[in-house]
C-alpha cells in the first residue's frame, strides 16, 4: 500500500462519506417509513394504476427505490474515491 491518501484527504473522504450516507438514508426513511407507513393515508388519496399510492409504496415502490439507492451509493462512493485518491 504505497499510494495511501494523505491524512487530510482521508479526513475529507470520511466526512463526505458520512454526509452522503445521511442523505441517502433520509430518502430510505422517507420512501418506506414515510410513504409506506406514516403518511400512507394521505398518499392513498392518489392512485398509481389501480393501487392506492401509499399501499403501493409499502408493497412495491419502496423496494424499487432501495435498489436504486444502493447503486447511487456505489456510484457516488467511486466518485469520492477518485476525488480523494482512495483505493476503493
Amino acid at each position, binding site marked *: 500500500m504505497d499510494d495511501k491518501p494523505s491524512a487530510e484527504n482521508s479526513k475529507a473522504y470520511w466526512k463526505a462519506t458520512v454526509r452522503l450516507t445521511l442523505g441517502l438514508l433520509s430518502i430510505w426513511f422517507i420512501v418506506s417509513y414515510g410513504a409506506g407507513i406514516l403518511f400512507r393515508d394521505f398518499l392513498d388519496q392518489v392512485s398509481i394504476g*389501480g393501487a392506492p399510492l401509499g399501499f403501493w409504496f*409499502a408493497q412495491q415502490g419502496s423496494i424499487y427505490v432501495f*435498489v436504486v439507492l444502493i447503486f447511487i451509493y456505489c456510484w457516488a462512493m467511486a466518485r469520492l474515491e477518485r476525488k480523494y485518491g482512495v483505493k476503493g
Partner: protein
Amino acid sequence: MDQTFWTYFFVATTFALYIGIAIWARAGSTDDFYVAGHDVHPTVNGMATAADWMSAASFLSMAGLIAFMGYGGSVYLMGWTGGYVLLALLLAPFLREFGKFTVPDFVGDRYYSTTARVIAVICALFVSFTYIAGQMKGVGVAFSGFLGVPFEWGIIIGMVIVFFYAVLGGMKGVTYTQVAQYCVLIFAYTVPAIFMSIIITGNPVPQLGFIGEAKGEGISMLAKLNQVVTDLGFLEYTQTNKTTFDVFCITAALMFGTAGLPHVIIRFFTVKSAGAARVSAGWALVFIALLYTTAPAVGAFARINFIDTVNESTYIADDEDYDARAAEITADGGKPVPTWYKDWESTGLLDYEDKNGDGVMQYRGPNAPDGVENEVSPNNDIFVLANPQIANLPGWVIGLVVAGGLAAALSTAAGLLMVISSAVSHDLCRRTLFKSMNDKTELRVARGAAAGAVLAAGLLGIFSNDLGFVAQVVAFAFGLAAASLFPVIFLGIFWKRMNKEGAIAAMLTGLVTTFGYIYWFKFVDTASANWLFGVSPEGIGFVFMWLAAAVGIGVALATKAPPQDVQDLVEDIRVPGTRTAHGTGDADMAPLRSD
C-alpha cells in the same frame, strides 16, 4: 407424465447439480472454507446472497402471509429488503475492509476483548440455530407433502445434501451451490406468478398486473379484492388492524435485524474489496427484489383465486366418486370443491368443518355481514404450494415449485451452517481456547463443526414441532440480531470512542431484554394488551436496539477510551486501502487485498 414423476425429476436433477458443484468447489484452506478465498465476483456474490437470504419462509410462507394480512404484510416486504440499504451503507464495505472471517471476529478485535467475542458468538449461534430449525422443517414438509417420504426422512435427506457441500466445500462450495439454487428458486417462483397474472389481470408482468385492472371487470384488481373480502366480513385488503406504531416498529426490527444477521454479513467477506462489497449488496437486492416485488402480486392473486374457487363450493367427501359427484353438483347449478383442494387436504394445510351441515363450504371473515360462520381454515403455506394447480398449470410446474422450495430452504440452511461452524472453530477454538492451533487443524475443526451443526440442525427440525417457519423465528432471530449485534457493529465503525465496556453492556442489554420480552409474550402471557407501548414481540427488537445503544454509549463514556491501536484500526477500515495490522492478534492475520 404425471406430477410425481416431474417432482422426482426436478428434485433429483437439482440435488445432483448441488453435489456436483460441491465436489468441484472443494475448499483447500481456511481462507477458502470461511470466505471462499475473498475472490467471488460481486454479481455472483449478489446472487448467492439472495439465495442465502431467501429462505423457506420467503419462498413458501411470505406470499400466503401477505394474502391473509393484506397491507399488514408490507412489514415483511419493506423490512426484508430495506435492511440491505443499511447493510450496504453502514456495514458491509467496512466489515470487508476489516478483512476477517466472522462477525464475532470483528466484535472481538474491535473491542479487544475475549468476553465481547464470546457474547457475540452466543448471539450468532442463537440467531442461527433458531433460523435453521425452520429451514430443516421446510425441507421435511416439502418432502412429506410431495414425495410421500416421511417427514423425518425428508429432513435426513436434506441433511445429507447440505452436509456434502457445506462440509466439503465450506463457503466456496456454499457460494456456488447458492448461485444454482437462486436460479432454481426464482424460476420456480416467477413461472406460476406470470401465469396467474395473465389469468387474473391479462398482464404477463405480475408487478404490473398487481396495479392493473381485473380482467374484463372494469375495476382495478385491488379494488375488486377489497370488495370481495369485505363482502365476506374480512378487513379491507389494503388496510390492517395493527397500529401504525406497531407496523413501524416491526418493519424497523426486520430491517435492522436483516442488517445484523451474521449469515448475511459474512457473504460480503467473500468479495475482493470494500467497493465490491457495495456493488454486491446492490446486486443482492436486485435479485431479492425480483421475488419480493412478485410476492405481493402472488398474495393478492392467490386470495382472489382461493375465494373464487373454494367459497360456496359443495364439498365432496373422500369416499365419493369425485367426477360423478362433481358432474351432479354442476348439473344442479352448484360449484364442486376444486380438485386441487382435495389433493392438498391430506397434508393438513386445509381444514373444513361443516358447521351448519349444508355440505357447502362457507369461507367468511370475523364480521361477515350475512352472519354465516366461517368453515374453512387454510394454512398460509398452501398458497404458494397450490398456486400452480389452482391456476391449472401443467404437472412439471408443480415439480419445479417443489425443487424451488427445497432450494430456498437448503441455501439458507447452508449459509447458517457456515456461521455456526466458523463461530465454533474460528472464534471459540482458534481465537479463544487454543490460540496456537494451525491452519490445517482449524480447517479440520471447521469441517467437524459444520458436520456437528448439520446434525444438530436436523434434530432441531425434527423435534421442534411447534416452531413455525415464520412467526417465532422472525421475532427471535431478527429481534436479537437488531438489538444485540447491530448496535455494536455500527458503533464499532462509526464511533471511535466506543469501547470494550460499552460493547459488552450493549450486547447484554439487547440480548437479555429482547429475549426476555419475546419469550414472555410468546410463551407465557400472550395477551397483546400488556405489550410495552403496544409493540408486538416481532417489533420489540427495534425498541430495545435503542436501549442497548444508549446503555452502550453511556457505559463507554463513563469508562476509558479504547487503546490508540484500536482507534487507528477504526480509522483504517473507514478509508479503503489503508488497512494495516494493529496489535498482536491482528499481526498474523492482517488482511491481504488481492489487487
